């Protein structure tokens, strides 16, 4: 009997230490400042990497996943293969992923675009767009924009993909 009790104590102790370690191991968090959720997503007109116009207004009626990222940002690099996958998976249902790179110049972005086989438009960001979206003061920051052009969700830091996918599906189903 005493051995059983001790065994339970040991299991609780080990599990407790493991959980504390997990929490403090530096995983990126979502959250951050209050998001301007439900507000109209600020419009922008940029040029994509091929010099084509990239205007948010042209995507009204689609669900837009707007990703502020950079090539040097490790969590961003982890997210992008998932965004490429989402673009393929949900294209027909009306998802449009748009990337806005906060890199200082286009060269590394072009290389990255090829390397990661990105299948959605990417433009270089600027101070004006960043300020319009409440300040991009850390990366990654991702916005989910509804078909009627409103900010449905804002994710600061590396987003948990199952959470995001669920939100995308929910927006795609809303008519």
């Amino acid at each position: 009997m005493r051995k059983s009790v001790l065994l339970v104590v040991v299991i609780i102790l080990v599990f407790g230490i493991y959980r504390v370690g997990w929490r403090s191991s530096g995983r990126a968090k979502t959250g951050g400042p209050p998001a301007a959720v439900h507000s109209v997503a600020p419009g922008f007109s940029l040029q994509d990497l091929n010099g084509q116009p990239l205007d948010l207004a042209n995507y009204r009626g689609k669900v837009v996943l707007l990703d502020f990222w950079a090539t040097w940002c490790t969590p961003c690099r982890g997210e992008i293969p998932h965004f490429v996958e989402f673009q393929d998976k949900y294209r027909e249902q009306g998802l449009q992923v748009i990337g806005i790179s906060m890199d200082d110049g286009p060269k590394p972005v072009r290389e990255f675009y090829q390397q990661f086989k990105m299948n959605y438009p990417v433009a270089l960001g600027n101070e004006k767009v960043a300020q319009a979206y409440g300040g991009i003061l850390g990366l990654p920051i991702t916005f989910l924009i509804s078909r009627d052009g409103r900010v449905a969700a804002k994710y600061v830091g590396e987003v948990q993909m199952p959470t995001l996918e669920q939100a995308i599906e929910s927006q795609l189903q809303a008519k």
Partner: protein
Amino acid sequence: MKNLFRCCCFIVALGILAAMVVLARHALATPFAADQSASDLAPGSAQLINPEELFNILQSPKGEKPLILNVGPSLLYMQAHIPGSEYIGAGSDSQGIESLRRRVKPLPHNKFIVLYCGCCPWSHCPNVRPAYNELHKAGFTNVKVLYIADNFGTDWVYKGYPTIKGQ
């Protein structure tokens, strides 16, 4: 009694083992773990300064004020930065490091310098460690790195510490 002693030893051994697993996980999760001076920038280490500490130093009428150098991306700096800080260039970039070398060249090695970036969560920041290593290599002895756990917005701007925009 003997059994109880054995059980206690077993518990202690398991506890030590679990702690070792946690420490190993943490070491593996930290980039540049192989670089000794960079791994010193682990949260809580002496080379770091917290936002609150830096703010207090800047506010205080007494004491030496640090030279604050931003070694992050320029687009983030232009949106918001610490008043009085200077933009150097990204520490992950050779041009940024060269610019850092030039900036500190005329300074005495005991100059109080604070480096910061805030582009991404601490363990993922590609800029502060190379910049810190460069100053360490150059012989600077009074260098601190601003510990920004998540990003500059969350840990400085939205906590109400002062910022300005522009170049």
